[in-house]
């Protein structure tokens, strides 16, 4: 009888990180299905390509860092980074754009900072922001217009576009995103005129409302499964909505609330990107502040900045603020009158 010597607790009931990440992957599937149905095969191809690249880059870096490769690859976090990039990049983005985004996400933003758990910035968003700044044309002209899958370019054609550089062939299928269209046309047109554009379709924004709805559904599942808490998505959406109501009530000047919530990457950002635990604030109060500030930044950049969408920049900017938020938002511990804010020895 050789007895194990272990420190308490002896019972464990955790979902391991790999399982948590797997659930995250599964809950993005409704969104991916909606994307594929309304915008063709592009997102699916991107997702597969980005995930493979992410796993490859992660494995190479782990090898270089003399870390156990299989042990860390199994945690599925690299796959999630690849997946999120594949979901957010333009459908017809050339393969090298995705490659730059994924490799910089994994190599620069994650592994060079120390790997899982040590990255101050959301890796996927670092990759996204990098290619958005570096390749503005490729990142704005390769969005698919909304058509249902049977009418969209075929799988082979899409593959060829992405990997073969046959950009001209699908020019007829690309279209500006609704937020982009609205932002650039509203200066010289009325809201009614702008909304005539086919990118808006008959609903809020052709196809986009369904994609956002599907991500919302997946996100709610994450909250229900207690993978994430409600604080960040709710505060983010609430502040974005309030900003829109406060500043953008005139539809002839600014995009309406419905577009802010249901076009662009809002739901994917609110539930899957801003909630990345590694780079987000920790306490409930901190999460509320963090989410709300992202919402404000998204609205600010979308309305008064140069970019039609702003999830990546907003999240990254707030990643900077996380240590600061964390210092000032610890919860009040049992038996204490108030939370102990700030840094020991300093006022707070």
């Amino acid at each position, binding site marked *: 009888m050789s*007895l194990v*010597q272990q420190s308490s607790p*002896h019972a464990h*009931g955790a979902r391991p990180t790999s399982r948590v990440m797997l659930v995250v992957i599964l809950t993005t599937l409704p969104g991916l299905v909606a994307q594929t149905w309304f915008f063709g095969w592009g997102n699916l191809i991107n997702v597969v390509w980005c995930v493979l690249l992410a796993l490859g880059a992660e494995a190479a870096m782990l090898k270089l860092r003399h870390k156990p490769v299989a042990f860390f690859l199994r945690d599925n976090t690299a796959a999630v980074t690849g997946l999120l990039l594949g979901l957010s990049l333009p459908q017809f983005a050339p393969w090298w754009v995705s490659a730059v985004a994924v490799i910089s996400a994994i190599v620069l933003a994650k592994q060079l900072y120390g790997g899982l758990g040590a990255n101050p910035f959301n890796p996927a968003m670092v990759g996204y922001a990098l290619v958005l700044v570096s390749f503005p044309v490729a990142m704005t002209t390769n969005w698919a217009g909304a058509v249902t899958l049977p009418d969209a370019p075929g799988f082979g054609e899409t593959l060829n576009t992405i990997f073969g550089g046959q950009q001209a062939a699908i020019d007829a299928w690309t279209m500006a995103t609704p937020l982009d269209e609205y932002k650039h046309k509203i200066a010289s047109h009325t809201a009614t005129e702008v909304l005539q554009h086919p990118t808006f379709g008959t609903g809020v924004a052709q196809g986009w409302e369904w994609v956002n709805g599907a991500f919302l559904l997946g996100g709610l599942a994450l909250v229900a499964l207690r993978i994430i808490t409600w604080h960040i998505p709710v505060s983010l959406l609430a502040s974005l909505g309030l900003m829109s109501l406060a500043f953008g009530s005139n539809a002839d000047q600014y995009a309406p609330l419905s577009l802010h919530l249901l076009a662009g990457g809002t739901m994917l950002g609110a539930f899957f990107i801003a909630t990345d635990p590694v780079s987000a604030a920790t306490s409930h109060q901190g999460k509320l502040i963090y989410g709300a500030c992202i919402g404000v930044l998204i609205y600010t950049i979308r309305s008064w900045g140069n970019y039609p969408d702003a999830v990546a920049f907003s999240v990254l900017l707030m990643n900077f603020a996380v240590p600061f938020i964390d210092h000032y938002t610890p919860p009040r511990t*049992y038996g204490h009158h108030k939370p102990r804010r700030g840094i020991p020895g300093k006022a707070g």
Partner: protein
Amino acid sequence: MTQLWNFPGGIHPPENKHQSTARPIRKAGIPERLILPLQQHIGAPAEPLVQPGDKVLKGQKLADVTSGMGVPVHASTSGTIVGIELLPVPHPSGMSDWCIVLEPDGDDAWCELSPIADYRKLHRDDVLNLIREAGISGMGGAGFPTNIKLRPPSDRKVSTLIINGAECEPYITADDMAMRERADQIHGGIKIMSWILRPERCVIAIEDNKPEAVEAMRKASEGTQAEVVVVPTKYPSGGEKQLIQILTGMEVPSGGIPADIGVMCQNVGTAMAVYRAINRGEPLISRITTVTGAGVDDPGNFEALIGTPTRHLLDQAGFHPERVNRLILGGPMMGYTLEDTSVPVIKTTNCLIAATENELPMPPPEQPCIRCGMCAEVCPMELLPQQLFWHARAQDFDRAEHLNLFDCIECGACSFVCPSSIPLVQYYRYAKGEIRTQRAEQIKADRARERFEARQARLEREQEEKERRREERARAAAEAQKKKEAEAEKAVAEGEATDERSARAAMVQQALERKKARPAAAATSEASTEKPDIESLEKQLNQAKGKLETMESMLDDARAAQADNVEKLERAVAKNLDRVKRAEDALTEARKQLETEDGQ
């Protein structure tokens, strides 16, 4: 319906309680030998009152704490003391400590017991003393001496007495079974404790997964002040602080005790022991312990004699050593693993889990923290476990303390849910230990500095005194010189009138007379002052000696009790020693002087 509050966080681990509630409480019987550790709870260890070879009776006091906080240890059965040895005791470190080893004679013969027919006729302090004499310490966890807990600081009035029957840890059913089968005894104990404390409210808190216990306790306490309150099952509802929050909505101030907010918690097992001690006169010599886990065929609860080796207890439940992979004393959340089966059951041993590999598997390898925050979600103390972990790992103890590390109750909920299977509690224990060590070293360094400074000041003072005395002597000498000169001058002036020769003769005469007179005067004056001086010096010496003795005995006591004023006492003893020496020196000096005077 009593209002209940919720406490934040908490978890619902698999309960695994049904295995050990199928059969009634059994007697574990008398083992071949009993091992009675001299220290079974926080406070001072007891000192043996018996010697190897002594025959003792069941219930006889074997060891007691003479100074410091603690309660006595009694013989769990009649037999012979065969040794007082260093043996492994129940402790997370697997350390050994002094134990009295008792070989039972099988007669199980009681010593004379003195039950109290009506404790209400006694003074409360006498009842508290009886509880102390019965060796009762808290039987739920830490094992704080019950008599001390039952006498809160005089400025704290206990308005709510909580009897903790929550028993929230998985596997453990000792309190559950005790409440089911011995509700009357428990209630008897509650009555005594209520009589001592006179609370406005007395609540028996039981988790809703123990309906039989609730029923039994309701029946036993019908028509009395005690009210049975059913609390929702959620770990760690049985934690003192959490239970107080559930029942009163109040929080025990950080670093304080429940009495600060007018609350006191007592375990149901303790209540039972109090009843037996007062109404039957029986000291605490046995307790109910759950023996469970897949490593035993016949799990259940046993009334085990204090000192029963765990092996004996496990065997009663059909132990299969080959199946067992880890042996836990306590529950799976807060218990600790045992190295072997020789350690004895003590007053705080509520559960023994013989777990198989399948039952409680080794956790997977630790992964990096991804700050998912699940630990913070389940923390009942509303700490930030992941931040504490980062700071503990980085040895940034200031920050860990700033984030209230010392409020952590080590319930293990955070480790339980951690998806990266990080042994968080272990990190906190490490950080706490390091901080405590640092503090102790700081105190030691401070004391050393104080000592050095005090010595330095004393040396300076002595130097100054010496200097002053030297100056005084010099001044006195100078004055004497002056006087002499003045006299001489006077004489000269007087002599000027007469003839110079006769004047010189007179001066010589005067000088001679002075010389003759001086020793005589000195002798008389010194003899008159010196004699009483010796007497007072002797008196001083005796006084100093007496004081030194008391100081030394106090120091010994303090050392035995490991009190924190040991340093201070050591210094005091050294000072007194010094004083005695000086007094002796002064005395011998004085005597010597006297002798020389006498010799003259």
